[in-house]
């Protein structure tokens, strides 16, 4: 019959191949992420020149044994700056979505579980936050609060709340109607217990997948702001500000822009890949197949 045929068509088409194809790429992405994390964490222990030491005699030097990736316009070691830059990009990239996932996740679960007026208020206030193009809001707030890593992280975190709220709320809405939650309610479990013991473990996985996508987005936004010179304040450098500085010498030393650009692209791509794969795995529609 028609229904039989449709389900056959779908189940035999994309998913199997998709999983196999993402397999290797997925592990490559995980590998790259691990490497970036490792060098960022261990930066102080690595035998690296200081990222801020200037060597005016060796400006825009090319690859050498002393400076593996050459030096920048002020004679600073490019590799060292790249690794210390990874720290900033990762700190902001991880901490900001952490704020989003905590506040947004909690609000979304509460809204999805209790419904009613609370839900309307939460959804409504998120709509207001979404009423601004995110980059504009980030720019405006940093302009008023002043540039610092802390401010930047907070702002990008707050901007992520609506998206996490939506994911958590959607997941909670579907879960709250399932038998195990109804059973727990029938057994007289408290709201706190249901939220923490029954719902949280199930909402956590889709949230985690979305968190990884959030990291990718945040690294891009932080990069954009720093690129414009409105992100992290100098002399701290993140990948974005390195690309911004490298842009000045695009005609003489394009690698100064393209090396951090490649690092950033690969990292963002890796987080996107891991997040997307996890989302596909935790997607209830796919799980049902």
């Amino acid at each position, binding site marked *: 019959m028609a229904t039989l045929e449709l389900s056959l068509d779908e189940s035999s088409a994309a998913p199997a191949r998709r999983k196999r194809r993402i397999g290797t790429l997925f592990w490559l992405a995980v590998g790259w992420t691990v490497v970036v994390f490792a060098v960022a964490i261990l930066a102080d222990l690595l035998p690296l020149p200081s990222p801020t030491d200037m060597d005016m005699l060796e400006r825009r030097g090319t690859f050498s044994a002393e400076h593996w990736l050459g030096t920048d316009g002020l004679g600073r070691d490019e590799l060292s700056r790249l690794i210390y830059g990874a720290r900033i990009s990762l700190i902001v990239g991880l901490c900001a979505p952490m704020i989003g996932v905590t506040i947004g996740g909690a609000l979304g679960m509460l809204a999805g579980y209790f419904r009613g007026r609370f839900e309307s208020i939460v959804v409504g206030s998120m709509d207001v936050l979404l009423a*601004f193009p995110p980059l504009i809001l980030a*720019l405006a707030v940093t302009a*008023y609060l002043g540039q610092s890593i802390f401010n930047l992280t907070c702002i990008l975190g707050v901007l992520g709340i609506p998206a996490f709220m939506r994911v958590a709320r959607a997941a909670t809405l579907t879960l709250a109607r399932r038998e195990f939650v109804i059973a727990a309610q029938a057994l007289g479990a408290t709201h706190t217990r249901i939220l923490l013991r029954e719902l949280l473990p199930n909402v956590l996985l889709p949230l985690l997948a979305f968190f990884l996508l959030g990291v990718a987005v945040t690294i*891009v936004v932080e990069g954009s702001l720093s690129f414009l010179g409105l992100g992290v304040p100098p002399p701290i450098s993140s990948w974005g500000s390195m690309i911004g500085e490298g842009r000045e010498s695009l005609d003489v030393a394009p690698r100064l822009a393209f090396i951090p650009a490649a690092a950033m692209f690969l990292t963002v791509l890796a987080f996107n890949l891991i997040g997307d794969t996890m989302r596909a795995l935790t997607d209830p529609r796919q799980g049902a197949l």
Partner: protein
Amino acid sequence: MLFFVARRLLYLVPVLIAVSVLTFVIASLLPGDLAYVILGDQATPENVAALRHDLGLDQPIWLRYLGWLWHIVQGDFGRSFRTGQTVLQAVSERVPISFELMILAELIGLAIGVPLAIACAAKAGSAFDRLMTGSAFGMLSVPTFLSAILLIYLFAVELRWLPATGYVPFTEDPLANLRFMVLPALTLGLAEWPGIMRVLRSDMIAALQEDYIALAKAKGLKPSRILFVHALKPSSLTLVTITGINIGRLIGGAVIVETIFALPGIGRLLVGAILTRDLIILQGVVLLVGAGFVIMNFIVDLLYALLDPRIRHGHA
């Protein structure tokens, strides 16, 4: 339909008010205050107190907000204390440039994304489809400023075909204007097509499995008609939605692109205002962009309703 419009309009009012409140609150968060910024070196306690009084900064915040809102309702968004230009003047000079940029970008995004989506949906699962969906996924990880410097490097530095920065008004020299617009619009367009392509592709693949496609085949229609009329037309509604979702990203992207390519649009005005701490302009621009964004979303909603016969006839 009328009811639908009325309901959406009614929703628009509180959101616009909330936008204005948020803008005002952000602006009031300023550590130190406007008086210090304006006076700069000449800030003595007496001067500051006098100026604060002149600016009304010594009043409670809600009173200041109402006063500010009252001026705005009358069309007075304030005046830059640096250039003397009013916010409205500054914005209206620059809006056409940003609009041109965003429209060109969206057109480029559609021109790349739509044909690719159709081709991929028609041959779903093929090597071509996998290559293109893979590329789209990769492109999603390329930040706007990255493709911008890549394009500058390629077309302006290496090939020297196009200018890297600059601007000529369209009314002055349309051709030169387009030459300056190509790279910025292409940069933004490159960020747009993957989203368009991914959503439209999966939408069309779903549409192609519908019964009405089987019937269209059973009617002996040409494959091109089945693809472009029967499958694409229902999916074109999705296209409107994506375009709506894209607006926010386009505005953000425009800020970056205008700054990189030195286009005197709204984005550059905003960044300039931040760098020179021109707070009146900043506040005005943020408010106008926020309001414009809300209104554009409203228009997209209406457009969607207008295009979908089911909503148009009040069945939704």
